[in-house]
């Protein structure tokens, strides 16, 4: 089943990258042509494609008639935006002060062991991405991990292993 899943994920992202620009068009029509909506638009695009495709960026550029360099500057500035495809599941490990003190680095190491990715990476099958964030505001539950929009507190290496398995584990194994 894992193989099947891998293939379908891969196919989906390929198709998205090459063909599906209609969503970008749709988003653009939803917002007035005012630059203060730029970030919101980029966030929508990011949410849909799990990254900012170049085609979409040039469409945004044309729509607002702004320099590409400005968009690129924004796209590389905000952590929520990415130019490389993000995985299906984005794992966010809190590395804020409280979580750091409570061993977030051990969790990061554990992910490296389980999925062979470091912060900023995506697994080869495109299923998991790893990011670190600075304080999620739940320090009492440190160390904190968030996967897509699901929250996990007081995470230990063994608990983490269970969680990752719940999401299908390492596809390479």
């Amino acid at each position: 089943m894992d193989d099947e899943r891998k293939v379908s994920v891969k196919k989906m992202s390929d198709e998205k990258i090459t063909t599906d620009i209609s969503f970008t068009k749709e988003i653009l029509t939803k917002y007035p042509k005012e630059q203060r909506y730029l970030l919101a638009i980029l966030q929508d695009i990011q949410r849909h494609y799990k990254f900012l495709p170049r085609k979409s960026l040039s469409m945004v550029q044309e729509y607002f008639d702004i320099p590409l360099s400005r968009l690129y500057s924004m796209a590389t500035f905000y952590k929520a935006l990415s130019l490389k495809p993000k995985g299906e599941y984005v794992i966010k490990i809190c590395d804020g002060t409280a979580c750091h003190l409570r061993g977030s680095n051990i969790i990061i190491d554990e992910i490296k062991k389980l999925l062979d990715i470091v912060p900023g990476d995506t697994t080869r099958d495109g299923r998991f991405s790893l990011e670190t964030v600075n304080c999620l505001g739940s320090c009492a539950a440190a160390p904190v991990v968030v996967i897509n929009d699901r929250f996990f507190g007081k995470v230990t290496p063994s608990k983490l292993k269970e969680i990752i398995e719940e999401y299908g584990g390492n596809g390479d194994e």
Partner: protein
Amino acid sequence: MQIVIDGKTCDAKRGEFLLDIAKRNGIDIPTLCHLDALPGEGNCRMCIVEVLERGRSRVVTSCIYPVKRPVEVLTNTPKIIKMRKTLVMLLASRVPENDMIYQLCEQYDVKPPMRFTKDPTEECILCRLCVRACEEIKLNAISTVNRGITKKISTPFDEPSDTCIGCGACAYVCPTNAIKIHDKNGKRYMWNKSFELLKCEKCGEYFTTRENFEYVNKQLECKEPKILCDKCKKTQAQENLRDIFSTYEM
């Protein structure tokens, strides 16, 4: 309104920037990210000074500090010098091999600390003047990229920019000479892009890129421009003037 800078009374308009007032009065304040043509960056903080007001002292960034009341300003107090030293030390840690910053180190008697890992090839202090210059010519080929310790200046995707015309304005304004222009065999190479260089019709020297030449003439709405370098343009203008005067004399 009058303000006092280092004991000298200076005329000032409300809202004028401290640095400009000082400059006009011949008082030297060091700057890195300020050019009169591209003011207001306020990134390098080399231009800090002390402002004394109602018995209290404050450190302000003179290039972006508008004066509102008659105040007293000190540009070279021990406190300011100590802070500038720290700034120079940090800059030197960022661009350890840069001549310009090295000179500042000598001037301020600063030794860069050993505890930072340094990149000997880095020359940019992220002052953003180049980005501003490019913005000002309406080309916007470069911008700041990334944030924090990986921040840098580059073209989108580090690729040759569609809008770059190889004019070299960015390199011209750079305080640390970080942007390298390579002119070789009639070609210019910068920002990962190569350009054809044009030869002056008169003296035969290469002087600009074709793209820059065409861009400037389009902006000036010049229909049949002569391919002349600045020097030859000047001599030509002088000759033209001389011709006009000689007809008057007749």
